[in-house]
């Protein structure tokens, strides 16, 4: 399982002799996504070491979770990875449902799947677009962001918010798919594909882009596993691991999709994995939508849950595949209406801690490319 695609790895890196310049990149810097900070030591333009400093967006989400009831914590999860808030919502809802022992009705599961995949597309679109912007290609960003706008419109008509969605509730979803979705989806599928195609044409085979990405920050699969990488980052390293396939939740085991994987774990592979995953997400939405249509119109959307949730004592960990990787919620309940301890496992936290290893020996421009391709979201990182 661990490594499916074999690559040859060698140990490389800068030799630590000579004079360095300490360059403080961030927390206020145009390429730092949110409030990240990297203290780099550079020798000319080569990076000798890059120490990430985090905590500039630390809001104490876990402490808040201990002081809010289960349903009150739901809107707080929006503020983790704000590019795909729905995935956070669903991950949290599913963790609490696991704690309560609830099985959500199939229609709600399908709606969750559709919305999550839309959120995944939106997240990847932002990531790929920003990667382009940081490497100097501004135009693809706009083609992609326009599609994200269309997706956000569906979100708005489904649950009333565009960015901080707070979708659904513990026990199911609160609204059926909006009419907008039924109208828009056939057109949107094509426009998403077209935007991806345009991006592909502008970037993928362009030599400047290839030079900037191929072989930059390459990473070995076993190192990636040791560092706790998940999601597109891990798949780019050649490890085909996707929680949607490996630990299926919702109805992902009933849909047919591929796991795109890279080979070297370099920026180009990460970019390609994200591009291909968008394609797969469109495929998943199509299948889920077909399954949704087969269900009767008045099929239940919610499981009956009491207004004040008091899950039985116990501790569970539940993880889903968020756009960035494994997003897990560890909840310990003591039987009261508030979680006793809630711990979020953000996917980019594990990736970002390996940042020093990722960029050592590369150049300053590659540091920016690497950071964009990691899709580190400060809200999720610092919690």
């Amino acid at each position: 399982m661990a490594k499916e695609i074999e690559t040859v790895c060698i140990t490389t890196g800068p030799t630590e002799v000579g004079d360095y310049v300490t360059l403080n990149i961030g927390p206020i810097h145009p390429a730092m996504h949110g409030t990240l900070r990297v203290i780099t030591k550079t020798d000319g333009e080569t990076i000798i070491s890059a120490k990430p400093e985090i905590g500039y967006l630390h809001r104490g989400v876990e402490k808040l979770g201990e002081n809010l009831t289960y349903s009150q914590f739901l809107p707080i999860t929006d503020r983790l990875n704000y590019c795909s808030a729905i995935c956070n919502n669903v991950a949290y809802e599913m963790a609490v449902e696991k704690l309560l022992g609830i099985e959500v009705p199939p229609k709600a599961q399908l709606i969750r799947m559709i919305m999550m995949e839309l959120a995944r597309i939106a997240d990847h679109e932002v990531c790929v677009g920003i990667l382009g912007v940081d490497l100097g290609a501004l135009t693809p960003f706009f083609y992609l962001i326009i599609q994200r706008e269309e997706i956000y419109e569906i979100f708005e008509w489904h649950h009333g918010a565009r960015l901080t969605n707070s979708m659904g509730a513990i026990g199911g979803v609160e609204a059926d798919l909006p009419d907008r979705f039924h109208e828009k989806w056939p057109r949107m599928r094509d426009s998403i594909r077209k935007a991806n195609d345009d991006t592909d044409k502008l970037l993928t085979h362009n030599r400047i882009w290839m030079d900037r990405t191929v072989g930059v920050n390459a990473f070995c699969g076993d190192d990636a596993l040791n560092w706790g990488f998940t999601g597109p980052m891990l798949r780019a390293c050649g490890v085909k691991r996707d929680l949607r396939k490996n630990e299926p939740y919702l109805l992902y085991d009933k849909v047919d999709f591929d796991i795109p994987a890279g080979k070297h774990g370099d920026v180009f592979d990460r970019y390609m994995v994200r591009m291909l995953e968008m394609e797969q997400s469109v495929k998943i939405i199509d299948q889920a939508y077909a399954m949704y249509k087969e269900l009767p119109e008045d099929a239940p959307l919610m499981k009956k849950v009491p207004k004040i949730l008091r899950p039985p004592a116990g501790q569970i960990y539940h993880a889903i595949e968020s756009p960035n990787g494994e997003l897990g919620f560890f909840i310990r309940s003591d039987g009261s209406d508030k979680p006793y301890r809630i711990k979020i496992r953000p996917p980019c936290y594990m990736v970002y801690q390996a940042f020093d290893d990722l960029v050592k020996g590369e150049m300053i421009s590659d540091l920016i490319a690497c950071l964009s391709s990691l899709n580190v979201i400060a809200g999720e990182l610092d919690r």
Partner: protein
Amino acid sequence: MSLKERVANILKNDLLEITESKGDVCVEISRQTLVNALKRLKEEGGFDFLSDLLGIDNSDLYAKPKKKKKKTEDGTEQEQEEKGPPPPRFEVVYLLLSLSTNERLQVRVRVPEDDLELPSVTSLWRSANWPERETFDMFGIRFNGHPNMRRLLMWDEFQDYPLRKDYPLEGKGEERHLNYNIA
């Protein structure tokens, strides 16, 4: 062979307690045998991926039932007291994952309040690097052998440990003062 039995086979005497809630298996091991046991779990049990690592402050959990029981019945309260001293205040939970079988396992270690030290597992999984620092930051549990045992999220001069139950939600009004030396 079920997961529980397999884990029990691997851990043998190191296993203190094994519990299950909603399908999530949790084993408790002692502090002294932690690294050894985790290494065996990694190599023999196939739990080769460390998802996450977290600390828990149990002080409220042990304090609560006593208060409640006092209100209702006298008998149960006495029973509680007979159990002897309360279990150690802190615990650290390691969330392991087997990549080959996709099984998850929680391993927990109890840490008493007067001796907040644990061996670091960064030699086994490098992914434990920041989670261990965060646990130190939030609970004050030190990890021996960690390459860089500094605060992660809070600033270095911060005194308290925010995720402990006795730390107020609103904080204590600490402010970070940055001293830029402009000479």
